[in-house]
């Protein structure tokens, strides 16, 4: 089935089987691997994306249901040259350890602040109820969301990774899209 949708502001045209889940369409057809699949049973929220601006679990939406709609993934929230305040806050407040839950957590937190720009700690916890983290114990996640909410209210968001770490530029530049997630030098080393 042919479907058209907008992903991170760009039109995408896909030929999909109706049973293809949105999470798989994003990861496998569009190479947007920032959307993670954790439980695959609608529970963990690792696969959270925005659909027409509201948070949904993309493992529980068929790609065909999203036809004609707008999808925003973590890649559309911000990138290394222009971090979203939420991404920066998760970094500076240590809101992640392994990072597996983090992309979904950030998308949900962005949706939470859209509804409630100044949430209390309790409101942050209940607003992120659909996202599970097995590492952090949540405390620093709450701290990160609080910091992001403040930055967004104060208008101090959007920095680049290089600005935040001027003395420690990333050792490996991210691969150009389409090349896969294994940087070239490692691919060659393994060959």
């Amino acid at each position, binding site marked *: 089935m042919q479907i058209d949708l907008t992903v991170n502001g760009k039109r995408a045209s896909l030929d999909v089987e109706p049973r293809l889940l949105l999470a798989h369409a994003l990861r496998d057809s569009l190479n947007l691997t920032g959307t993670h699949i954790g439980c695959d049973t609608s529970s963990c929220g690792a696969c959270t994306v925005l659909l027409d601006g*509201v948070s949904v*679990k993309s493992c529980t939406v068929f790609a065909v249901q999203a036809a004609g709609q707008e999808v925003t993934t973590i890649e559309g929230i911000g990138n290394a040259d222009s971090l979203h305040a939420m991404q920066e806050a998760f970094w500076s407040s240590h809101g992640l350890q392994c990072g597996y839950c983090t992309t979904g957590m950030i998308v949900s937190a962005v949706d*939470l602040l859209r509804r409630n720009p100044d949430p209390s700690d309790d409101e942050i916890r209940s607003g992120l109820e659909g996202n599970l983290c097995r590492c952090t114990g949540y405390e620093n996640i709450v701290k990160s969301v609080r910091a992001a909410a403040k930055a967004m209210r104060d208008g101090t968001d959007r920095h680049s990774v290089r600005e935040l770490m001027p003395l420690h530029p990333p050792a490996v530049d991210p691969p150009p899209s389409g090349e896969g997630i294994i940087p070239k030098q490692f691919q060659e080393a393994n060959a």
Partner: protein
Amino acid sequence: MIPAAFEYKRANSVDEALRLLGEHGEDAKLLAGGHSLIPMMKLRLAAPAMLIDIAGIPNLDQIDAASDPLTIGALTKHAKLAASDELQKKAPALWDAANDLGDPQVRNRGTIGGASAHGDPSADYPAVLQALDATFTLAGKNGTRELKAAEFFRGMFETALGANELLTKISFAAAPKSAYVKFHHPASHYAVVGVAVALTIDGGAIESARVAITGVGDVAFRAAGVEAALKGVKTNDADGLAAACAGAASGVQARSDTFASASYRTAMADVFAARAVAQAAAR
């Protein structure tokens, strides 16, 4: 997990959905928010040959809280119910349930019609809609019919919906002194025990009560004994209210699972009934 293959069609009107259902019969299923059906399809507990997506049918996702009775379109999402100030004032039991259902992402997709049609024994709305004595409007190829909530919910995953029918709306009279309180499963948020109460109060005493309980048996039920015992009890008599809630689930075959035994569910029915009554009376 990959569901079995199926054909997908979007219906743009109730008539179109009914026509497609008529053509494809038992092989077809309606798809609203997909938050019960898709998980079941992924586990291959359901494998419909065709899905008829009704999510885009216009005008079925409205809350009309100004009318009496209040009317709610079947495609209204949980999140919209949870955000409705009018609903909070006029039928707080339903507002409570919508706010405490699942998690934000689930509330952003799931609909009241789908949650009702699914007939899950641990779902919240079956109790709330019985306590509100709601009326369900079902559309079929020969027109529409109306059913009361108590007739609609029949058993475990079983409702009065015919295979070729579509639930279009749910309506009920305002019940400002109503509440829904649940003990939710810590992982899924479904009701282990959930109690909905709608009261009328006269001169500081309960004049009438409707009490419905979900999560305990195969299907949500009205607790007739508690309803009768609550009559005439003063709303400031906490012990009297709690005493009236004793035996809330008596006569009901309670379910047992790894999380809660039948006797635990039965005991919690009394506790949560008392809490729901207190909360409704305080409103």
